[in-house]
């Protein structure tokens, strides 16, 4: 304790509140710098790479529309996950909940393929919401009944959900006239989200996501249940002391994530994709976890973080096309962002002190 230890990590007496909100910005900046270094090492001109990655994707209307439709599921799922994360309920299963939501919504669309009723879209979204929540209720049930770790259960259910979706798209939901390709019929107009701006793919689902973020903000910041969630996450024993029912909050936390992910899944298939495919998400369910944390579990922050994350997706695609970068580049940037965020958060709460071999050691 007193001899060899030269580096000591100790909690800061009062972590800076300002720095808590600056750390996502710092993380984004460091991610950018590291990314440019990587580009340089790969032999690319960093300025060109920066331009291709972060400017080119959004320098026209179409690009901005793409940014919004990528950010839309991220902000919606991120907000839903934040409800659980604030109560220290770690739902890692949004990817699976999204797949089940898409599956349920897609099943409705396939079943009513001939119909042109205006109720089909609402029915799809409702089915997706219910599906996502049902999938999330499995970890909730196991957690509240048997105290099973929701991280493991929700994570493992992702693989079940994705394989289930693939199985059904290969089987009963496959387009009979589709030459055996594993995909459903193309959805009709009544099962597709209307485009808002001509010449883009910007669909009304983005508005729904924004509404979800606002609703999440009201719920988390203004409602009594949101307050209970904050108490449960901040000090579990204080929640028991006040008599808040923790099991109820676990259910709410997991179902909120399932609801958001399920709806986001429907919006993917009823929006940019337009049919059911074996894979409907480029990892939105996982990326939304990063979005939620970069956004400080606050809906406003999550909104901004979702735009950043969407840009990384677009930049990754653009980088692949224009710079011959490998497809892993998006994942690298996501990983860097999370890594720097965690590091910055750690340093906001703790400080590292190097010290001579003999000093306090109580």
């Amino acid at each position, binding site marked *: 304790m007193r001899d060899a230890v030269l580096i000591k990590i100790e909690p800061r007496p009062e972590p800076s509140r300002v720095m808590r909100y600056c750390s996502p910005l710092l993380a984004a900046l460091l991610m950018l710098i590291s990314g440019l270094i990587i580009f340089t090492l790969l032999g690319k001109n960093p300025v060109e790479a920066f331009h291709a990655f972060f400017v080119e994707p959004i320098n026209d209307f179409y690009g901005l529309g793409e940014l919004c439709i990528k950010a839309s599921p991220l902000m919606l799922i991120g907000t839903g996950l934040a409800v659980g994360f604030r109560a220290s309920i770690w739902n890692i299963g949004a990817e699976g909940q999204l797949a089940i939501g898409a599956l349920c919504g897609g099943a409705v669309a396939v079943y009513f393929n001939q119909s042109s009723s205006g109720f089909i879209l609402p029915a799809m979204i409702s089915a997706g919401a219910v599906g996502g929540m049902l999938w999330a209720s499995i970890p909730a049930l196991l957690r509240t009944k048997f105290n099973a770790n929701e991280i493991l259960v929700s994570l493992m259910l992702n693989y079940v959900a994705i394989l289930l979706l693939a199985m059904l798209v290969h089987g009963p939901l496959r387009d009979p006239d589709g030459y055996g390709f594993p995909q459903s019929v193309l959805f009709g107009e009544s099962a597709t989200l209307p485009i808002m701006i001509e010449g883009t793919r910007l669909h009304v689902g983005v508005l729904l996501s924004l509404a979800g973020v606002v609703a999440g903000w009201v719920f988390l910041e203004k409602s*009594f249940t949101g307050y209970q969630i904050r108490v449960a996450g901040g*000090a579990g024993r204080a929640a028991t002391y006040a008599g808040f029912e923790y099991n109820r909050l676990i259910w709410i936390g997991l179902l909120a994530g399932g609801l958001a992910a399920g709806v986001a899944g429907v919006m993917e298939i009823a929006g940019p994709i337009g049919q059911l495919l074996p894979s409907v998400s480029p990892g939105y369910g996982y990326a939304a976890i990063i979005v939620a944390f970069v956004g400080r579990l606050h809906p406003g922050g999550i909104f901004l973080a979702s735009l950043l994350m969407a840009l990384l997706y677009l930049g990754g695609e653009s980088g692949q096309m224009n710079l011959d970068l490998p497809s892993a580049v998006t994942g690298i940037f996501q990983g860097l962002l999370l890594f720097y965020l965690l590091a910055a958060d750690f340093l906001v709460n703790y400080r590292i002190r190097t010290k001579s071999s003999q000093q306090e050691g109580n």
Partner: protein
Amino acid sequence: MTLTNINIPRLQLEGMTKIYPAVIANESIDMTIAPGEIHAVLGENGAGKSTLMKMIYGVIKPDRGRILWNGEPVDITNPAHARKLGIGMVFQHFSLFETLSVAENISLAMEDYGSLDDLSRRISEVSEEYGLPLDPGRMVHSLSVGIRQRVEILRCLLQQPKLLIMDEPTSVLTPQAVRKMFATLRRLAAEGCSILYISHKLDEIMELCHSATIIRGGKVTGYAVCAEESAASLARMMIGRELPTCSRKRPDVEGQECLRVNRLCKIAADQFGTSLERVSFSVYSGEIVGLAGISGNGQQELLYALSGERPVADRGAITIDGESVGHLNAAQRRELGLGFVPEERLGRGAVPGMSLSDNGILTAHRHGMVRKGLLDFGRAKRFAQKCVTDFTVKCGSVDDLITSLSGGNIQKFITGREILQQPKLLIVSQPTWGVDIGAANIIRQAMIDLRNNGSAVLVVSEELDELFEICDRLLVIARGRVSPSVKVEKTSKEEIGLWMSGMFPGGPVDTNKARELQSEGCCVD
């Protein structure tokens, strides 16, 4: 008192100064302690006593000032260094590792202790000798606050210190045990060990200490020879004005049975907890009932059961106003008029990451702060503001984080929050623990007012003085059993002290055996 080398002080402090960013904790403090002297350091909470002691013990470095140890200037760099010099300290806030056993914890502070078995044997011996029984094999996390303090005391005694610093050591002892500890301290002093005794209990200081240094606001406001002072004059030096008193006026209030505990049994959650055995008692509206006892005798378990944080299977075992509530959770019981102040402030009575205002909502939300599921933050702020004003909570604003307050101020806020809700039944654990004298009086007065307005109040405290001051009836808990109640005016601290050792009718210690032991001069604990 034999003073060896009376010319060379054991410890001399010159101009000790410690400045923190926001506050000067200690400013030019001088102090001298002779060998074998028992010296009191007297001051209110936040006066800077602990900072000074930590500098002596090498936990923090002084910004200015000099420490002379046996006449030699020393630079005490860390607690191990202090221990090597012969300084032992019993902390107010414990410095034990929860996941280690008692013996393992003590071994960490010892240079050379042979094997753990040897050490355990020595621990048992010394603990017997000083009347502080302790099982060396027990894990610290399972120990109550009181027993943990015992571990700290023993850890020091095992090192045969030349200077022993004791920070508020008696709050967890029976009067008999206090007397025994005083005898121990006097014996230590007679053997030449100097003792720095930090306390706010004036009568104890008058009884035990030779001299005193009084600190207020980080500065020395006086030195005193205890024999030449009265408790009142010491208090005046300590708080800078006359000692405020509680209104003793307490009309008889006709009341009905409000809380009834009927043969409550609860098996301890872990093997080191205390099981409750057929606990029965009542608290009537318009009275304050005190529950005395050494901590770790089942108070925590009882309070968890009463508050609803750990409901019991037998719903009729606890009734509030005749309604069975054993199975209800804390919120449901609060709906029936329960208010509760727990022993732990942060993390249980309050949420660390939240503001005062948000912490007010925690239990006061049912008083019009929730409308259609949404919180009325304006109302919450006004409530918190009232709490801050009425209970003189020192804070910048109600938007400050609760963790920015001192322990005493957090206690005032939590107690105030519960009392302002005008509960029909208020249960308070350690209401004035770590609270300065002025604020303690405000809290006590508020409890008395609540009683006079017809509420039932149950106070769980280790401080007998406090219980005797405010209570109508007393109960004692020992090893999970609760004694019959006795009116305050019909008992004495001595009797309650005996009961605290388990010697009460139907108590865990057989009364005949107890009488025998007493005649032999033993203290059963």
